[in-house]
């Protein structure tokens, strides 16, 4: 069973109303957003999101003229209490995993650290070997 999660990434110029328009489009398709982050650079940003139906979201946003891509990420479970991130960060460190970017969200029972790494399969293996708990795409909801 694969632990990779399909994240959608949307290119967005730094303009007021961009996020609202994207959120509108997803709502229209009844797509739920579980987690998301905005990374901004000079003049543009990238919206990254884990959603209930990535394929549908991709289709809809592309139709509307957005630049969208899929990216494989992994979700590491964290205890949702003080020290939860520290534990996971230590595991990642000892597993020698280099994080390209990460963002976190708090699910119903636990917190999840969403991580983008270079070598997804190697990272999954290393994390598991060091005691990390990964979340599957269908567990997101």
């Amino acid at each position, binding site marked *: 069973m694969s632990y990779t999660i399909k994240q959608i990434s949307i290119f967005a110029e730094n303009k007021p109303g961009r996020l609202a328009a994207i959120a509108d489009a997803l709502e229209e398709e009844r797509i739920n957003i579980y987690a998301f982050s905005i990374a901004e650079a000079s003049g*543009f940003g990238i919206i990254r999101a884990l959603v209930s139906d990535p394929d549908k979201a991709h289709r809809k946003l592309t139709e509307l*003229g957005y630049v*969208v891509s899929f990216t494989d990420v992994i979700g590491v479970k964290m205890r949702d209490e003080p020290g939860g991130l520290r534990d996971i960060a230590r595991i990642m460190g000892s597993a020698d995993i280099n994080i390209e970017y990460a963002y976190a969200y708090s699910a119903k029972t636990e917190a999840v650290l969403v991580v983008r790494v270079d070598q997804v399969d190697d990272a999954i293996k290393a994390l598991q070997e060091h005691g990390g708990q990964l979340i599957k795409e269908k567990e997101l909801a």
Partner: protein
Amino acid sequence: MTCWDPRTEDMSKAELQAIQYKHLKTLVYKLYSFSRFYHDRMKEANVHPDDIRSLEDIVKLPFMYKKDLRDNYPDKMFMGGQEELVRYHVSSGTTGKPTVVGYTQNDLNNWATSVARALTSIGLGRKDIIQISYGYGLFTGGLGLHYGAERIGATVVPASVGNTERQIELIQDLKVTAICCTPSYMLHLAETSERMGVDISRDTMLRTAVLGAEPWSEGMRERIQEFTGVNAYDIYGTSELSGPLFTECIEQNGIHIWGDMAYVEVLDPETGEQLGPGERGELVVTMLQKEALPMIRYRIGDLTSYDDSTCACGRSHTRISRITGRVDDMLIIRGINVFPSQVEHALLAVPELGEHFQIEVNRKGSLDTMLVRVEMNPTAFSDKIDDLMSLKRRVSRVLHSMLNISAEIELVGPGTLARSEGKAQRVIDRRSI
């Protein structure tokens, strides 16, 4: 009036016209006989050298265009052989193809003479130390002024462009009295010296500025003069005519075009009809003595008007007003010619980009800035900021190598830039000069 070349500069209008006619006649015979390019063009226009019987008959002669130079790249329009040539200069072109101009020894002499007369007419001479802050190299600005300034016996500081703080130190340490640069660079220099705590009028000997290579206004002159205490003079020229050639005189009331070297007309750009004094139109220049690359009725595309009354300085050489715009869409940014088609050409070479783009020119402080907005190709989108930033840097490099000017790049999504029917609104010029 102090003249470099009193005999020529003091000439009456009638004397000048006699010389112009003599030169024109010779030029037309020479081109008809020895220039394949202009011979054909005269044939097409059904005009023979014998048809030129007065100076006014110049209207019978066909025009030359920038396009001709590009079509005949690099040197197919040159007269004589390579042995006669002593120098090339190269300027940027619209399609990524530059234009090449060549000079014989006489051409260089005339060029330097023209600049020598001009610099003398604004009161410069042997006692002056002139810093030349135009680019040296393929661009004609630096070397053109350099030889003219040396000709009048001034001491030249060939500073070229950039490193503004060092330039200000040199102005102080070498007791520079005059500077030649673009008007925007002059303002930048003034702002930088202010930041350094250097008051140009108090702490330096700088009293004269020869400014050009980009359009500027009377208002900007006032700002520069007030800000720095220098007298600022407008200079004009393009590489096809040789380079910077003509300036205003001490009166600051129009640029004197040395009549023995050049014949100017101002035309209605639509009809090609000659306009009268004071009427704004397209500048057309005939270089009367150029040898390597003769230019007859060359439509530069700059907008101006002329005044052939005798100037308060006493010279009767025709004056043109400052250039207020371009007939075509060429942009002059920091003294460098930029054509939207060049930008397009450069962007098309980057597969990650779409074909739609927009150029926005601004003036930040006193320096021109160029922003290029370009649509990204959807398939090229990477989720990594690093990849997009490096794409931006790559686009910037491609543009720089083609235009020789740095531009800020803004990546936008496909379909973001406004499409218009017919001619695309590709340029937004927000500079107010």
